[in-house]
């Protein structure tokens, strides 16, 4: 007699489950090597004195999102990048920082 439909389907599910487990295992096994790699990267960051990822190199003001000028032409918002795609990913800063660019609450209250 031929097979029941569940035989093949449950077997595929078992295979998918195994693949899923294998992904978890891969993540766990590559953990130490990846941690070492990240530590090496972090050391380089410290040695060079870097502040940002090299993810958006299309424009000079996009390379260092955390150091960006707060004043560049054609921006939708004084603090946003109008450059694609960096501007789609990089959010507006939460605050203007502790610099002199805004009034602190204490100053407003006074």
């Amino acid at each position, binding site marked *: 007699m031929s097979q*029941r*439909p*569940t035989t093949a*389907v*449950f077997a595929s*599910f078992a295979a*998918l489950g195994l*693949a*899923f487990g294998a*992904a*978890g295992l*891969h*993540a766990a096994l*590559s*953990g130490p090597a*990846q*941690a070492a*790699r*990240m530590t*090496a*990267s*972090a*050391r*380089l*960051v*410290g*040695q*060079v*004195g*870097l*502040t940002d*990822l*090299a*993810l*958006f*190199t*299309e*424009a*000079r003001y996009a*390379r260092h*999102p*955390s*150091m960006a*000028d*707060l*004043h560049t032409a054609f921006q939708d918002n004084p603090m946003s990048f109008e*450059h*694609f*795609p960096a501007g*789609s*990913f*990089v*959010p507006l*800063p*939460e605050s203007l*920082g*502790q*610099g*002199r*660019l805004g009034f602190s609450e204490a100053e407003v209250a006074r």
Partner: protein
Amino acid sequence: MKRMLRRQRALADYTLAALSRRWGKNLALISVFSLVVFVVASAMLFSAALKREADVVLQSAPELIVQRMVMGRHEMIEADAVAALAPIRGVMRAKGRLWGYFYDASSGANYTFMVPDDPALVPGPGEAIIGEAVPRARGLDWAGAPLFLSRRSGDLVKFAVAKVLSADSALVSADLVLMNEADFRDFFEIGPDVFTDIAVTIRNPREIGTIIAKAEKLLPAARFITRDEISRTYQKLFSWREGLLVALAGAAILAFAIFAAEKASGLSAEEAREIGVLKAIGWDTRDVIAMKLWEGALVSVGAFLIGTVLAYGHVFLLGAALFAPVLKGWSVIYPEFQLAPHIDGLQLSTLFLITVVPYVAATLVPIWRAASADPDRIMR
């Protein structure tokens, strides 16, 4: 217990036999469903891994950066400021940083020039340490090829490449050209007493607020960027909108929801009749519902597993190849980076719930009435 399992398997058998009658349509449904899960799961895994990487790696960034602002723009800061900051109580060290951008017209790429903070890493005169993407961008990837840079027409500066930084750190270093201070000042033709900005090391991180308050009095025109603010920028980097990816995925989810609702909820007369037959030949309402639960669960759990496994492979084994063009945009230099594989249980559970629950509900709700109707309906 055994009887219960056998009952469930028999019901699953029926569901599968019924699904396989329209196998083309159902296969298409599972494929589209898996694709949607794949895109969403890829975006989730990718942004989570990137956030984690940024968080770990940028822990070593300078604790405080002091920049001079002129008309809202970042300007070179005088060496005097370094001397002014150093004596503040709690400041361990204040050091001028030199960094800048160079647009390489021959390759169209933007490089980041920098003088390393650590003397051990500073290259000798006429030498440079470059990031892995620099030779790639110039199409010169044989070992030992020197770096020729032209600042204007008729000008050519040569650097011997002392070292190419490992691709392991590409995410932070891909576009770097490191050189010593004299070469840097010479190349950009800047005077000896200015810096790009100042990196300040602090003894006790909790004193940072006090130190900034004191420094503000000394340097009223400066901007202060703390490491917390840097890391916050990156924590928010992909969670703010999760960018175009999730916007695209959102549209895909919506389209799929319409498709699935139509497919699952449009109970055909044929299907209603079949449920009537099943009830008439001795199936209970619970049996019919359990059978339909199997249908919803097999389709949605299958799509979830296929989608997430493929997403894992895509993000961590293939380097998120589908997202690279989106992140890259107009950039000429794009790091060939690898991300540390990491599975966030909570995130994955959320994805599981938003995949499986709505679909199962969409298959169950429409049959509820048919399943609880009187079995003799089929005879009338």
